[in-house]
C-alpha cells in the first residue's frame, strides 16, 4: 500500500522506518550522554567496590542497603555525581533542539540527507526552534498551573472523603488531564516546527498563531494521532519494566539490552510523532496550495463561491474532513 493511502500514524511509521538512520543517530547520542553522565559515578563506584567483597550484595540481587551505603559514605557519595547526569541530560536536550530542524527536513524531503545538508538544516532552524522552545514555556506553565489547581482540588475533595480512593483517583485524574493537555501543547508546537520547516517560516509568533489555528481546527484528528503513538510509548515502557523485574539479577547483559530497548522505544515514538506530524502537514499543505488558487479566483469574482471555506479560518486551514 502506498504511503498516501495510509493514515498519518501508519504513514508516519513508514517514514520513520525509511529514515531510521535518524533514529539510530539520536539513540547513539542519547546512549553517549547516558554513558558520559554515568561516567563519574561509575569511576567512583569502581574505586570503592572493585577490590571489595561488598559488591556481591549488589550482584546477587540488588541489596538496597548496600546501594544506600554507596550513596551515604562520604568517600563515595554517589549523590554528588547525579549532577553529571543532569548536565548530560540537558546537553541531550540542547542536541535535540539543534537536530530537530535536520530531522524534520529529512522527513519533509523523505530522503537521506548528506551530513552537510542535515546539519545545514539543523543550523538553519536552530534559533527559530530555540525561540519556539522558550515560547512553549508559557503554555506549559499554564498547563502546570492547571495541574496544580486540579491537584489541590483533588486533595481538598479527597481529604473530606471517607475512602482513600476518592483522593487517589481524583489525583490520577488530575495527572491524566495534565498529561493530555501537555500532549496537546506538544502537538501544537510540533506542528509549528513542521510548518516552520515546510514553509520556511521565520516569524515564530506568526508561525505559532497559524499553527494554533491549524491544530485547533483539526485537533480531534491530530490529537488521536499523538495519543495513539504516546500510548505505544507508555505501554512499551510498562512492559519493558515488568520484563526487567523478572530478569535474573545476575543477567547483566540481558538487563542492559532490555533497558536500552526501553529507551530506544521512547525515542522511536517521539520521532514517530514528528514523522506523522510532517506527513499530516504535507498532505494538507497540498490542499492549501489548491485552496490558495481558489481564493485568488474568489478575490477577483464579484460574488463568492458558495462552497468556499469560511473566510475567518484563514487560507491555510485544511478542510475539516481532511
Amino acid at each position: 500500500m502506498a504511503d498516501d493511502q495510509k493514515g498519518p500514524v501508519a504513514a508516519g511509521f513508514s517514514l520513520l522506518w525509511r529514515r531510521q538512520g535518524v533514529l539510530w543517530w539520536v539513540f547513539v547520542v542519547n546512549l553517549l550522554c547516558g554513558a558520559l553522565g554515568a561516567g563519574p559515578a561509575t569511576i567512583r563506584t569502581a574505586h570503592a567496590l572493585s577490590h571489595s567483597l561488598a559488591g556481591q550484595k549488589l550482584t546477587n540481587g540488588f541489596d538496597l542497603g548496600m546501594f544506600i551505603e554507596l550513596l551515604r559514605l562520604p568517600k563515595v557519595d554517589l549523590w554528588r555525581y547525579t549532577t553529571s547526569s543532569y548536565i548530560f541530560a540537558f546537553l541531550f536536550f540542547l542536541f535535540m533542539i539543534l537536530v530537530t530542524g535536520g530531522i524534520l527536513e529529512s522527513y519533509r524531503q523523505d530522503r537521506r540527507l548528506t551530513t552537510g545538508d542535515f546539519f545545514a538544516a539543523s543550523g538553519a532552524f536552530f534559533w527559530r526552534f530555540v525561540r519556539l522552545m522558550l515560547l512553549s514555556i508559557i503554555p506549559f506553565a499554564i498547563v502546570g498551573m492547571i495541574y496544580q489547581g486540579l491537584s489541590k482540588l483533588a486533595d481538598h475533595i479527597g481529604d473530606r472523603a471517607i475512602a482513600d480512593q476518592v483522593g487517589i483517583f481524583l489525583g490520577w485524574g488530575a495527572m491524566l488531564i495534565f498529561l493530555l493537555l501537555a500532549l496537546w501543547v506538544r502537538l501544537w508546537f510540533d506542528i509549528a516546527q513542521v510548518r516552520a520547516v515546510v514553509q520556511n517560516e521565520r516569524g515564530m509568533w506568526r508561525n505559532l498563531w497559524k499553527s494554533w489555528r491549524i491544530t485547533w481546527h483539526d485537533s480531534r484528528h491530530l490529537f488521536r494521532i499523538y495519543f495513539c503513538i504516546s500510548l505505544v510509548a507508555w505501554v512499551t515502557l510498562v512492559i519493558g519494566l515488568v520484563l526487567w523485574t523478572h530478569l535474573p539479577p545476575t543477567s547483566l547483559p540481558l538487563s542492559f539490552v532490555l533497558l536500552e530497548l526501553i529507551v530506544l522505544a521512547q525515542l522511536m515514538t517521539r520521532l514517530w510523532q514528528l514523522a506523522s506530524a510532517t506527513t499530516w502537514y504535507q498532505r494538507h499543505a497540498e490542499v492549501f496550495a489548491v485552496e490558495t488558487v481558489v481564493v485568488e479566483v474568489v478575490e477577483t469574482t464579484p460574488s463568492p463561491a458558495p462552497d468556499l471555506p469560511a473566510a475567518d479560518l484563514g487560507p491555510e486551514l485544511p478542510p475539516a474532513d481532511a
Partner: protein
Amino acid sequence: MKRLFVAWFSAVVLLLPIAAAAKSPFAPEVKGPLSQRVVAYQIDAKYDPPTHTVTATETLTYHNLTGQALDTFPFHLYLNAFQPKATWIHEAHRDGNFRTSSLANWKPEDYGANDVSSFEVVGMGDLTKQMKFVSPDDGNPDDKTVFQVKLPRPVAPGQDVVFKIKFKATFPEVIARTGYKRTFLLAGQWFPKVGVFWHGQWNCHQFHALTEFFADFGTFDVKVTLPKDYIIGATGVQISDQDNGNGTKTVAFHAEDVHDFAWTADPNFKVINDTFDGSVGQVKIRLLSYDSHERQWQPYITCVRDSMKRFDDWYGPYPYAQITVVDPPHGAGEAGGMEYPTFITGDSGWYIPKGVHLIDLVTEHEFGHQYWYGMVATNEFENAWMDEGINSYTEVKVLDSFYGADASILNWMGAQLGEREYQRFSYLSDPDIDPLYRHSYQDMSMGEYGAISYGKTATMLITLEKIVGEQTMRNAMHTYFMRYRFTHPTQEDFMKTINEVSGQDLSWYWNQAMFGTQVLDYEVLRADSNPVNWFDENLKEKKGETEYETQVILHRKGDFVFPVEAVVKFDNGDTTYERWDGKDRWVRYVYRKKAQVESVQIDPDYQVTLDSDYLNNSRTTESHHAAVHKIATYWIFVTQFLAQMLSWLA
C-alpha cells in the same frame, strides 16, 4: 409492686459487678493482679463530635505505696502541649516538623487543650484554687502540661487518697498520637494523669516533642457516651453498651494492670475479629479499619497473630484478653504507628504493593510495645531507648523471621532491604552526637532522638549478639521481660540482666555503646602476597610451586574498640580465620605458603552492624567488576531516560 421493683433493682445492682467481673481483661489462664496497682481511675466521659471535645469526671484513687507521706501531687495535662507557647510546640517548631505534621500551617482551630474546672480531694475539700502549673524541665512559664496540688495534710504511707476532677479535653486535628480527622477520633493522653513517684521523688516531666510518657500501673473503668452510630474501641475490654434512647449510647470499658487508657471512635469503622491461641489462653484480636482498606485487613491480622506467636515463644506470654488494632483513615497519619496498653494503631492505605512490608513494619513495632512499654514500663521521657530501641531490636528479629534478614522491609521490583540495615542507617545518620544514657527529652533534635533511641539501640543489640550469641541474647531478653514486667526497670536493670544471663562482664561494651558516642570502623588496610625469593633474578612464578609471603593488615579506624574476626582466603582454596581483640590501632598477620592471598574479609556475616563502613571491611587482590557494571548499567539508563524526557520539551 414497689417491693418487687426494689428487689429487681437490687438484683440488677448486685449482679452488675458480677457481670463486669465475668468479662475478665486477662487471657483465660491468667489470674490478676499482675502489677502493683498504684492507681484506680474511674472516668465518665461524654464525646461531642462537632466540637471534638470530651467533658468528663474523673475519680482517681491513689494508693500511697511509696513508703513515705505525700502532700504534693503532680498531674499531666498532655493536651495543653498543643498551644503556641507550650514547650512541645516550641521544640517541634525548633526541629522543623513533627513526624508527618508540618507546623507551618498550624491554625488556632488545631490547638488542643485540657481544662480542669474542678479539683476536689475527698475529705480535704475543693482544691481547684491550689492547682499550680509547674515546668520542672525548662522553666517555661507558658507551658501548662504539668500542674501540682499541695494537699492540706499529707497522705500517710499505705493510705489512699481520692481525687475527683472535672475536666474538658479539646482535641486538635491529629497530631502527636492524638486528635481527630473527619469523623475519626483517637483519644490519647486525654485525661489528667498523676505522675510517678520513682526513686524517692515525683517523676512528672512536661510533655516534650521528642519523647513519650510514663505512668503507674492500675485499673481503669471508663464510660464513654457518644452518638450511637459510632463504633468505639479502647484499652482493655468492653463490658457494657447501653442505648440511652436519645441518639447516644454509653459504652463501658475495664482494664487492669495497665498504665494508660486510650480510645478511638468513628461511625465508619469496620470491625474485623480474630483470635490468637497463646500460651496462657486465647486472645481476641479486634481490628478497626475501613472498607477502603479491605485489602489490608488480612495482612494486619496475620501480622498481629504472627508477632504474638514470636513474642510468646521468645520473650513471654501476652496476658491480656484482647488486643485492639486501629487502622487510621487516610490523612490521619499522625494517629498511626502508636501504642497504648492493649491498643495499637497501624498504618496502611488502599494499595500497598506486595513485597513492601509497611503494614508489618508498623504493626509489629506497635505490638512489640505491648512488651517494651506496656508491660516492661520504662520511663519514656528519660530512657526512650528502653522502649523504642529494645522494641526496634525485637522488630528486627521478628521481621527477619517473617521474610528473611535481607528482605524484611522490602522485596519489590528486584530490590531488597532488610530491617537491620534500616535501623543501621538510622543510627549512622547521626552516630556521635548523643549517648544513649542521656535523658531522651534532652537529645539535640528530633533526628538525633530517632537515630539514637531507635537506630543505635537496635544496632547495638544486634552487634551484641556477635559477642554473647543469638540464643543467649534471646534468653537474656526473656529473663529481662519476665523479671521486670509490670514494673519500671532502669537502664542498669537491663545491662545487669544481659551480663547475668550471658555470664559475661560487658562493661567494656556498655561503656562505649551506652555511655559513649564512639564510632566503630575496622578496615582491611592491606592484603598482598610477594614471592619469598623476590631477589632471585631467575624467579619464574608458578601457581602451587612458588612460595609467597602474604601480609594482611587490619586497621581500627574508629574509636570504638571491638573484637574482630577476619577470614583470609588463598588461591589454593586454603582459608584462615583470625581473631583480633581490636584494641591496638592495627595488627599485622604474615603467612608463608605456596599460595597467594585472594581475599580478606572482616565480619563476613555482616553481624557487626555498628560498623560504620561496610565497603572497607574486605579487600580482594583481583578486581571484581560485576557490581560496578550493574550500577553503571542502571545509572546510564536513568540518565538516558531523564535525557529523553527532557528532550520532549525541545
